[in-house]
């Protein structure tokens, strides 16, 4: 595994490889079933959960359908609060802005709060090219970063690793990145967490520049919100002199009170807690408290492309809770890496094609098919994203994008079937050949299909022949 999703194989190939890893399947089954049960328990505590979901969906939908106004308002309030607002069309532009700010302060390192958006734009790699080290400070992200690995879950990115693997990574890699792991490091989670605390603390205490994303951005008040558990977020948001937050334009909500449904929905859906341990909110600069230079980078990077898709735009409501991953039968067996993106699972299967467009990359085009369409993801989604409907719509888009070229075997088979089924005489003629066809298929058929499945035996007589011989069973059926 190398630290990039670029050039990942299409989903079916990547999934086959993941399915062969029984340790991974065991880890995932344990993790997803544990979080599922926790979530179900705390969701059941809320009597009006369905109305809360409706409210959550409405808050995000209203902001999205009024996005221009909300973004301009957010820029105004942020600026009035003393923050500097930047706009970035794509990843390269956003990375250049962050690097520019770090360089302006002669910083050779930054500390980072776990954030999906900075992974999406490849910020760490871009900063490394400019000679700036970006340190991940969330425990799971630290494990992924030190292991030169890729995240495999939105909420618990190192869920594919077990404690013994984590101890090995800490022992062999921590020293090169800073304070080494202690010699007597065991694989107890508390001991491993303590080693991470010591390793990261020296970085927090000396950091000049912090980098974060945001879970929500309130247009009315210019407030950014970050939810987390460990306190590494609070460290990055509070101790450095300079704070840069990269915020996708879909993170905006209109009003202060809109935070209410979101803060009730997110932790219960995500970690299965009534509330996450820490939520930080800041509205620009607070004199004498925290960073005195605050930047916000508003990022498009495909979001306006998704917004233009009338069916798919609801995916921009996503608050990255990961509930859909934990209920998905496909994710549970393949894990996150097979999706080839920082956004895995059902939401990743629709978000990646929406952000990047279909028809030009086989890996992305394979994602809308990485689903059984069972609908469990829609049921748990706190902002009611109808993922199955978007998947079906995207499958149609993928098919449309590939019209005109060499037809695929399925398309040929379907065309053939249409020809045969149109006339009953054609069908009965073909039925007589079924036995021969089966024998042929057994010998020369596609092994990708027959390798794991048995072809049934052909019947000795077709239904039509039987009907004719017995007059529909009225004559003797001897």
């Amino acid at each position, binding site marked *: 595994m190398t630290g990039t999703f670029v050039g990942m194989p299409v989903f079916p190939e990547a999934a086959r490889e993941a399915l062969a890893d029984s340790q991974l399947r065991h*880890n995932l089954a344990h*993790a997803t079933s544990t*979080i599922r049960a926790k979530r179900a328990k705390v969701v059941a505590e809320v009597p009006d959960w369905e*109305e*809360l979901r409706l*409210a*959550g*969906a*409405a808050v995000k939908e*209203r902001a999205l*359908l*009024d*996005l*221009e106004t909300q*973004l301009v308002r957010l820029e105004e309030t942020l600026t009035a609060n003393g923050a500097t607002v930047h*706009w970035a*069309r794509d990843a390269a532009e956003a990375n250049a802005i962050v690097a520019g700010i770090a360089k302006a302060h002669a910083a050779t390192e930054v500390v980072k709060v776990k954030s999906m958006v900075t992974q999406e734009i490849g910020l760490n790699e871009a900063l490394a090219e400019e000679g700036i080290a970006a340190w991940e400070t969330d*425990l799971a992200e630290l494990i992924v970063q030190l292991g030169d690995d890729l995240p495999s879950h939105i909420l*618990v990115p*190192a869920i594919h690793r077990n404690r013994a693997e984590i101890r090995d990574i800490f022992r062999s890699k921590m020293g090169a990145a800073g304070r080494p792991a202690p010699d007597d490091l065991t694989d107890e*989670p*508390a001991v491993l*967490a303590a080693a*991470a*605390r010591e390793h990261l*603390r020296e970085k927090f*205490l000396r950091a000049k520049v912090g980098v974060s994303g945001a879970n929500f951005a309130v247009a*009315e*008040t210019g407030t950014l919100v970050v939810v987390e558990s*460990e*306190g*590494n977020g*609070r*460290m990055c948001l*509070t*101790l450095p002199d300079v704070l840069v937050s990269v915020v996708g*334009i879909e993170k905006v909500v209109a009003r*202060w*009170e809109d*935070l*209410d449904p979101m*803060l*009730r929905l997110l*932790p219960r859906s995500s*970690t299965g807690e*009534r*509330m996450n*341990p*820490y*939520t*930080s*909110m800041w*509205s620009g600069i607070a004199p004498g*408290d925290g960073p005195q230079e605050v930047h916000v980078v*508003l990022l*498009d990077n495909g979001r*306006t492309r998704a*917004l*233009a898709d009338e069916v798919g*735009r609801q995916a921009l409501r996503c608050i990255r809770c990961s509930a859909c991953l934990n209920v998905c039968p496909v994710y549970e067996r393949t894990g996150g890496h097979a999706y080839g993106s920082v956004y895995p699972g059902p939401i990743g299967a629709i978000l990646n094609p929406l952000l990047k467009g279909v028809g030009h990359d086989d890996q992305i085009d394979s994602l809308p098919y990485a689903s059984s369409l069972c609908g469990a993801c829609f049921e748990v989604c706190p902002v009611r994203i109808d993922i199955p409907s978007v998947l079906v719509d995207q499958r149609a888009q993928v098919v449309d994008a590939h019209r005109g070229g060499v037809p695929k075997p399925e398309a040929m088979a379907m065309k053939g079937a249409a020809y045969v089924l149109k006339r009953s005489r054609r069908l009965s003629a073909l039925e007589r050949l079924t036995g021969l066809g089966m024998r042929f298929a057994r010998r020369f058929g596609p092994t990708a299909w027959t390798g794991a499945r048995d072809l049934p035996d052909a019947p000795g007589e077709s239904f039509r022949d039987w009907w004719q011989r017995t007059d529909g069973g009225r004559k003797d059926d001897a």
Partner: protein
Amino acid sequence: MTDARSEILARVREALAGSTVDPVETSAPREVHPVANPELVDLFAERVADYRAVVERCSAEDLEDRIAAALPTGQVIVPPGLSIRIPDAIVDDGTLTAARLDLIAAVVTEARVGIAETGTIVLDHTPDQGRRAISLVPDTHICVVREDQVVADVPDAIALLDPSRPQTWISGPSATSDIELDRVEGVHGPRTLHVLITPPRDVIS
């Protein structure tokens, strides 16, 4: 070449051409609770304890003794506007660096709001709570919540809070479940959260 701002806003406009905002507003459901309901304070105490925080209820007279008993050995820092007397505590004047704060064992603060349903303490970092760093770096946080500060649920808290102030919502001590989903207290914030629930301030005098 257009600038990024105009281009993004133009793309947004184009993407939404023909779409309208649904005027029907769905507001989040909420139950209305009477203020200063003693059951709410009980629920708050129970829910904070669920996060493996230490929770104690005490009278105004006992407060200083309880805090003294809860303090670990080592230096203590307090915000400049703390209404409780803590002997030998360093009063934060805003000049201590992060490295210096790291040598301090404990912090004592007050709070703005307690949320019963979720067991959450909200700090809005006024002088009785101090700047964000002092309640973050020391390993023990002793937080005093008044009974009349406890509200029922998140919407009640949102209605009371001033968005222009920085805020820290705390639900239990720092925690992680990143290693095989085993919950570990830590990694980075205070590993011990000690909450003292005491009668309203005006009852003290």
